[in-house]
């Protein structure tokens, strides 16, 4: 790891929290620090959900305009900063998908099912290592359950939309996912 990079996850997260809090006080230099620390991750999120590079760029710009406006509402004690930011990116990208169904060229299930890459240095710095249990527990689910849960997360799809895409009755879809969520909860509880 480069010597000028934050030396530990704690330090990286603290630097991001500080920059985000200062952004909430309308500090533009801090805002640019937030951008530089997180843009690649958030662009990855936008790209994955939008499936269209031009759209992902527009959405990313919207996301940071929102970050600038909403940073004063970020509560360091309650949320991880990268999760707070990534959630804004996810929500905006899902809004875009809903508004532009014809431009969302990739199918949401393809989007959700991209092969898992190995986590990058930024991830290991900004995400909490101890909270990776979800991945292990998801791996323990049936393929369909796992796919549907990921499609719901990355595509912002409801039960009704998932049922339509999979051409199964609504009740069947609810039952698949609820059983998957139940197993997920058991697995997460076991591990806690």
């Amino acid at each position, binding site marked *: 790891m480069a010597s000028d990079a934050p030396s530990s996850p704690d330090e990286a997260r603290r630097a991001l929290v500080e920059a985000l809090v200062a952004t909430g006080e*309308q500090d*533009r230099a801090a*805002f*640019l620090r937030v*951008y*530089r620390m997180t*843009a*690649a*991750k958030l*662009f*990855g999120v936008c*790209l994955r959900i939008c499936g269209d590079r031009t759209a992902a*760029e*527009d959405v*990313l*710009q*919207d996301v*940071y*305009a*929102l970050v*600038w*406006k909403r940073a004063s509402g970020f509560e360091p004690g309650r949320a*991880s900063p*990268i*999760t707070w930011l*990534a*959630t804004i990116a*996810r929500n905006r990208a899902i809004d875009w998908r809903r508004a532009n169904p014809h431009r969302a060229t990739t199918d949401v299930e393809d989007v959700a099912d991209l092969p*898992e*890459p190995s*986590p*990058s240095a930024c*991830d290991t710095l900004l*995400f909490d290592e101890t*909270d*990776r*249990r*979800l*991945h292990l527990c998801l791996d323990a689910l049936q393929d369909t359950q796992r796919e549907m*849960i*990921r499609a*719901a*997360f*990355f595509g*912002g*799809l*409801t*039960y*009704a939309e*998932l049922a339509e895409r999979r051409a199964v009755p609504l009740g069947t879809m609810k039952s698949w*996912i*609820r*059983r998957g*969520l*139940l197993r*997920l*909860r*058991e697995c*997460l*509880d076991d591990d806690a």
Partner: protein
Amino acid sequence: MTTPDDPDMTAAEVALGLLDGEARAAAHRRLLADPAFAREVAHWRAHFATLFAEVPEVVPPAYLEHRIAAAVAAGGGDRASVHALRRWRWFGGGMSAVAAALLVLVLTRATEPPAAVRPPSRTVVPMVATLAPGAGVAPFAAVYDQSTGQVRTLGRVALPRDRDAELWAIGQDGVPRALGLLTRDGKTRIVVRGIRIEPGTTLAISIEPLGGSPRALPTGPVVATGQLDRI
């Protein structure tokens, strides 16, 4: 430990956004009224958020940082200016050899002997831009001569018969303003009236119906953009 008889997964469903209609409304009312339920939803949200960690990082193009910084500087990223800026894609990147050659060409033309000799103390430095093109478009060079208020461009856009290429200026406020149509011979001169052109102004070319955009903003694809600067 959860028992199988209790398959109420509403908290997870809310966190994932699976519900709609009345079920969603009811769950959201419960979210406000039931703190334990709200905590459970928050836990699920935190768990699902770890899915973000698997999304590969993709470095966004450098011009996005400038766009975002400009939008914030221009007034806290208010919707109107963000929306206007969003229409624009800066084709960033270094100047290609062809573009550099064009720039030399256009500058040579721009500094052709003036008809009247101006006092040396009033020499106005022209502003130039290389308009970095998108795929399939040859590079453009543009010069703005403040003394004559004239923009000249050198470069040609391949156009269908029923389309024109239109030149736009985008100032600090992020709002595109039409300067005029490019001529088909690739050597355009446009006298600018009532539009502020300064270093940092972005020039852009869009493809429009014959006669130019029917609206105040571009309607067709933007094929090249670049920023003016003093030389």
